[in-house]
């Protein structure tokens, strides 16, 4: 490693991919710094997999209470308190935030709580502290966020999954726009917790890309549970009236709900990152373009995880990060293997899926 730069490796983004790479590199004696502007753990820990699983666990109880009678149990009046669930979830998340930070620190990496913007191919500007640092290699692991790019009137009244994790109260009714795994998981969560759920999706069948029989089975199961499905129509507009949001679909179906949640896809965090100062190329869909070793079009800058839009899954980001460290610091070029990756959609029941042919997944 040369001494020409402040660091050997500078990682932008303290989520799954960034923390894994920073920790592994630091363990190998690489002079590493990692910048995170928010809390450590990224989407997975703060606004994704982990809090989602807590809500999924919570939503399962009513069906258990119902089944209990058949097994001889008499269950008393069951009451649910949303603030208790959210507070306990946040407590667990705070614990994980600390765990992620300490993993990097223990390995010898430096934590920088700041927003990092690329100034040139070796220089990162830290916005809050106003200073510049240099690094031989830069890894971009900035992740993504839920899209709000909805082309209808009143979209500003809608929430996304980000807000759903921190609602002050549990809505009595919610309309969810989208047919992907996030829409479906939240439809089951809110239904299980007692809300009236309407799912609106412009396609003919939910969970595109999954096995056809499975998609049919899921829709049938949702209808039986009492989740209202409105398919093959777009959402055209909505407006607030008191506590309720009223919406209309293109096919003319009206609905009202206390909350409307957009689950219409996720976008990569590429804005205000200074990419234009480096010449890093983007894919047609706006993700950072990388080769099979996660190298961008600028040869000392790499990218892993959701910002690259390959398979947007935590374990895949971890795998890509591990391969990056092996390739750059381990002397063994390792290309991440994106074949035969099992995933699970946490509906009720759950939908795990493994397939060699699947082109896209959750």
């Amino acid at each position: 490693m040369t001494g020409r730069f402040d660091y050997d490796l500078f990682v932008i983004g303290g989520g799954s991919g960034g923390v894994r790479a920073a920790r592994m590199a630091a363990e190998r004696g690489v002079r590493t710094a990692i910048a995170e502007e928010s809390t450590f753990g990224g989407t997975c820990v703060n606004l994704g997999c982990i809090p989602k699983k807590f809500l999924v666990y919570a939503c399962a109880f009513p069906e258990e209470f119902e089944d209990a009678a058949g097994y001889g149990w008499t269950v008393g009046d069951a009451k649910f308190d949303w603030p208790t669930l959210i507070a306990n979830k946040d407590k667990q998340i705070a614990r994980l935030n600390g765990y992620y930070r300490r993993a990097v620190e223990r390995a010898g990496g430096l934590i920088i709580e700041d927003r990092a913007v690329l100034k040139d191919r070796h220089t990162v500007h830290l916005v809050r502290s106003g200073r510049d640092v240099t690094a031989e290699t830069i890894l971009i692991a900035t992740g993504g966020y839920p899209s709000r790019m909805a082309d209808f009137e009143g979209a500003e009244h809608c929430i996304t999954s980000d807000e759903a994790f921190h609602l002050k109260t549990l809505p009595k009714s919610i309309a969810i726009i989208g047919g992907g795994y996030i829409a479906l998981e939240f439809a089951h969560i809110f239904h299980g917790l007692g809300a009236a759920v309407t799912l609106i999706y412009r396609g003919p069948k939910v969970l595109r890309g999954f096995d056809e029989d499975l998609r049919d089975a899921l829709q049938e199961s949702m209808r039986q549970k009492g989740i209202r499905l409105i398919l093959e129509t777009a959402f055209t507009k909505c407006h607030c009236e008191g506590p309720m949001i009223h919406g209309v679909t293109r096919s003319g179906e009206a609905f009202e709900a206390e909350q409307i949640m957009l689950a219409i896809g996720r976008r990569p965090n590429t804005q205000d990152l200074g990419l234009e100062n480096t010449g890093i190329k983007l894919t047609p869909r706006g993700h950072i373009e990388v080769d099979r070793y996660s190298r961008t079009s600028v040869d000392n800058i790499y990218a892993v995880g959701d910002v690259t839009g390959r398979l947007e899954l935590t374990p895949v980001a971890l795998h890509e990060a591990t391969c990056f460290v092996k390739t750059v610091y381990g002397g063994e070029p390792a290309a991440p293997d994106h074949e035969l990756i099992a995933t699970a959609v946490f509906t009720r029941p759950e939908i795990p899926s493994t397939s060699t042919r699947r082109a896209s997944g959750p």
Partner: protein
Amino acid sequence: MMKLVIDAKTDRVLGCHIFGPEAGEMAQLVAISLKMGATKAQFDGTVSVHPTMAEELVTIRTKAYTRAPVA
């Protein structure tokens, strides 16, 4: 508790023992891979399903202890 027993010479997974909720649902799937002669490297090379308890099967890294086979 989750435990994989590995042959140090061949890297083959010889056994899997789990003490945990719904672990009975995992046993069948592990049995298929063991029947096929899977190695620890192949377990490690499988991307995990997150967040699940079963993902520990492919993320176990710490060697607990080594001991000679029972004669």
